């Protein structure tokens, strides 16, 4: 069982500059850029809560809200 469960992405779109780093490096291709070149969550069901988009965002625009799993 994974350490964290995905809850939601908290994206501050006005801070996003559309560099596409999060989109490219997401291992599950959860994120996409919209017609205004801002990131949005296209496939939330695929997210594994690794939070690499949050760590690599140069604009501090992404936060992945997760829930810590209790040990079985």
């Amino acid at each position, binding site marked *: 069982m994974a350490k964290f469960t995905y809850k939601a992405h908290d994206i501050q779109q006005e801070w996003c*500059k559309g560099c596409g780093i999060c989109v490219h490096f997401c291992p599950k291709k959860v994120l996409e850029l919209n017609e205004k070149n801002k990131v949005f969550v296209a496939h939330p069901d695929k997210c594994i809560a690794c939070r690499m988009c949050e*760590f690599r965002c*140069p604009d501090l625009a992404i936060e992945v809200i997760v829930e810590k799993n209790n040990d079985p």
Partner: protein
Amino acid sequence: MSVKKFIRERFFPHIWCQGCGHGIVLNAMLRALSALGISKNEIVVVSGIGCSARISGYVDFHTLHTLHGRALAFATGVKMSLPGLNVIVPMGDGDALAIGGNHFIHAARRNIDMTAIVMNNRIYGMTGGQFSPLTGYGMKATTAPYKNIDHDFDIAELSRAAGASYVARTTTYHVQQLTEMIKEAILHDGFSVVEVLSQCPTNFGRRNKMGGAVEMMESYKSLTTPIGSKAKQENPALIERGVFVQRELPEYCSEYNAIIEKLKKGTEK
């Protein structure tokens, strides 16, 4: 874990270009500080001039935005007067090693307890893409349109030779390693250097046909290797990343304090 408690939100979105690596360094630095749990009041961020130096305006600690290349000199003053503070000096490659080259080697030689984060984007980005001491042989810049004939420094080797007691290198692609290194560097008692290869897609990548931020970060994955790996022996052109130096040496402020204590005793007799 949100890093928003550590930033001055009124200055966001920041001025850095789309895909600039400096934002990733800022992100990692805030995560490292958050994980260490140091009080905001005990952190001082001192920076010089350049894109990288803008970091001090965005973080909600004690900050000093000082002269070009002289950040380490100001930081030395801060640390000497209040040695209990954690002093972090984010610098660009030109700021640290061209304009501030002397301050850099002498701060390292003294082994004063502070953390220098050198964001190496291999160019003077803010002023329009002039070549820096880290641009490297054969690369293009606005001031080297027919390719650069200067060779670059090896920051890790330079810092080791100058006497730094903690030296590490990583890239903006390897963010988790970057956060760990900044944490270690802050905890280390002595002069710590963390070199981060940071992409400048606007003024370095575009001029050298390296693609955008994503392609430059992909190249960090393929052009670097952990220290002492087999891949490095097979291909010496690879850039090593990891901790190069971690040694215990007398720290400057404690040595200075020891002299004060000794002389106090001397006058009491």
